[in-house]
């Protein structure tokens, strides 16, 4: 029966196509008297109602086109950098005190018309070294991932977590709710793509909570590209986006993150893309696009290797059932980004 089911599934050679199209709706919302468009869909609109815009940020910098009637608005940017401020048509609005570090709340009075809003830290466009965290594969360890977050909080000067997916075990709504609660422990934002386990419950749940799975942003001169490889491949639509992002960031330091490694460093294990031709094509694109670092999850261990001459890490230490025998349990990567030079340190939680 299962084999028959697999055959039926095989009839669909583009399982990611629908997801890629669905992503395009992220960050766009409209009610009777207000319309919101987040550039590149880098935030998901959790609430748009009378006088309230509640966003979950998928990137350190949000550019928003906001058309509204005159009125007072509460704009909440969750999952923001701790020093993020809101700029409304070149006027800086400071955040309200009393919120969690990653929740930025702003009170603004807007005139009728279209406004350009930007949520970003003051140094977002300043090219300078910075530090971030990378991790993946939480899954069954969701109830105790706060322990990992507590360790991350102890890392000085880390600006955000860049994650390679598999937050949940089964993509259930209560798992997303639990993760939302666990994120209140983390004092820096968590930007993530999805993993194969998020697909168990349907990708829309992921989009509704954390926004796009394939996206691109630039922070302090370094480009970050996240790509949805949840079904062990990258859809041609996403690959087309990737072509543009690679071209755009050709002269910048560039970090590429996706859940499943294109080629498993232990080749015959096949914890990799389902087509090696697609994997090789992706790696060739990354090499031509002069990507400086590739970060993967999916395999619950830690491996440092190179693919297509690009330094690479598989880091699946978010707490999911760890690989036995290799002595590596929960861990995360601390990455000091200094232009094209990425210094990676492993922090073990267990």
């Amino acid at each position, binding site marked *: 029966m299962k084999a028959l089911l*697999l055959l039926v599934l095989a009839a669909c050679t583009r399982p990611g196509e629908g997801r890629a199209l669905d992503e395009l709706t992220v960050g766009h919302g409209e009610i009777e008297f207000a319309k919101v468009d987040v550039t590149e869909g880098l935030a998901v609109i959790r609430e748009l109602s009378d006088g309230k815009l509640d966003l979950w940020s998928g990137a350190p910098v949000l550019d928003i086109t906001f058309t509204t009637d005159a009125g007072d608005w509460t704009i909440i940017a969750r999952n923001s950098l701790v020093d993020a401020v809101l700029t409304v048509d070149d006027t800086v609005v400071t955040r309200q005190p009393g919120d969690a570090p990653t929740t930025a709340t702003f009170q603004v009075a807007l005139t009728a018309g279209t406004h350009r809003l930007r949520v970003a830290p003051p140094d977002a466009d300043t090219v300078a070294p910075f530090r971030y965290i990378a991790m993946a594969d939480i899954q069954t360890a969701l109830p105790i991932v706060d322990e990992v977050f507590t360790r991350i909080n102890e890392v000085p000067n880390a600006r955000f977590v860049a994650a390679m997916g598999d937050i949940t075990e089964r993509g259930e709504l209560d798992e997303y709710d639990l993760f939302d609660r666990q994120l209140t422990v983390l004092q820096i934002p968590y930007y993530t793509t999805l993993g194969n386990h998020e697909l168990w419950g349907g990708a829309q749940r992921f989009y509704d909570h954390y926004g796009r799975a394939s996206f691109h942003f630039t922070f302090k001169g370094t480009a970050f590209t996240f790509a949805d490889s949840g079904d062990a*491949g990258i859809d041609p639509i996403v690959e087309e986006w990737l072509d543009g992002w690679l071209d755009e960031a050709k002269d910048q330091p560039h970090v590429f993150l996706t859940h499943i490694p294109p080629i498993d460093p232990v080749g*015959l294990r096949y914890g990799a893309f389902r087509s090696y031709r697609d994997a090789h094509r992706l790696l060739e694109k990354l090499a031509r696009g002069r990507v400086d670092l590739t970060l993967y999850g999916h395999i619950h261990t830690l491996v440092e290797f190179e693919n297509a*001459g690009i330094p690479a890490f598989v880091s699946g230490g978010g707490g999911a059932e760890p690989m036995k025998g290799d002595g590596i349990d929960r861990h995360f990567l601390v990455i000091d980004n200094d232009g094209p030079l990425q210094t990676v340190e492993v922090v073990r939680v267990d």
Partner: protein
Amino acid sequence: MRWSGLCLVASLLAARPAFGEGRRLNDLEPQPLPLRGCDHDDGLRYRKLTIPNECTPSVLRRTGAVAASLTVGFLVHGTGSYLVGEKRTAKRLALIEAIGLGGMLAGGGPIGISGGYPPTMTLTPVLLVGAGMFFSSWWADVGVAAGASRLGMARAAAPWSLELATLYLSDPYRQAGLGRIGGNVALGRVTLGASLMGDAENEIRTGELDARVRILGAAATGEVIDDGSRLIARAGLRGHQDDGDRVKLATGEVEVIGRLDLFHIDRALRGSFVQMSTGLGVERAYYTGDRDNTSLLLGTFGWGLYLSHHAEAQLFYDHRRESMVGGIAAGRAAGFVGSMNASLDWMLDRHWATHLEVNVGTAWLTTVGLRYRGGIPKLSTPAGDR
């Protein structure tokens, strides 16, 4: 509810044994004693293979047996055989299933429990052979239920052959029409092969060299043979260049390929076979400014039928990911699973044969080939058998 219905149908069929159904003989007449259930040894090499009416299950029973073998039979192999009266076959298929499950557990258990710890990967061939036994015995059961076995006999490969094929590749990124020319020549136990493949735009080019050593099995005479079982060691080299993907690949691989005609397992399975292979490969990929090597695990398992002595059909799984089609988008198992494939080789006359193949993975690949089989003696089978 659906499963309950299927179980009920299976139970009703099982409660009324197939043997005897459709008998036309008067009950008072002496009954021919079946060898076992409905087994009849065709015995002679070129005799027409027929089954007496008194042992032929009705169409309804066959339909029910096929339905049961495809559903309940996935869990209990032999269900279909049992329902058409082949009880001994059913038991043997169930035994093969059990051994296959054991292999899957023995091979896949440590891999799964350890989360893919590299040293456990050495057990992958055990997993593949176990999966091969599991799925092949299931497919064989469906075949027995459908009455598809006993249809034909094996034919040895020709001493030499040339093939011209056209292929159509449909993958998520493009469609491409390709052509392939290839040939084989048997020199005693060694068969050498070579092929070239390219597309109309000359964007995709693949060349292959192949050497096979026949360890067991019939020589390449092109004749009908009693037993198509064989064991072959193979070494191959492949170069692949894809201008669209801007990727150049070189692959070297070694594998062992085995085929077993299933009449060795049970007479009711005469005319069908299982084929499995396993091996290792190394692939070198050339990128802009760099190159990577990666190891490959090769593995296939399949089940097939000889159709008369003119053709053979095969359904098989291929664990490769580096092929043109890659692995199927198998939902939660995507990435760990290879491709599903079906092939049909049909002889048009003594020398000319067609080859049809469909490969389904991330991409679909359809092959239609025309093969000339050379070096075959003038009279390979009695004229009356044509």
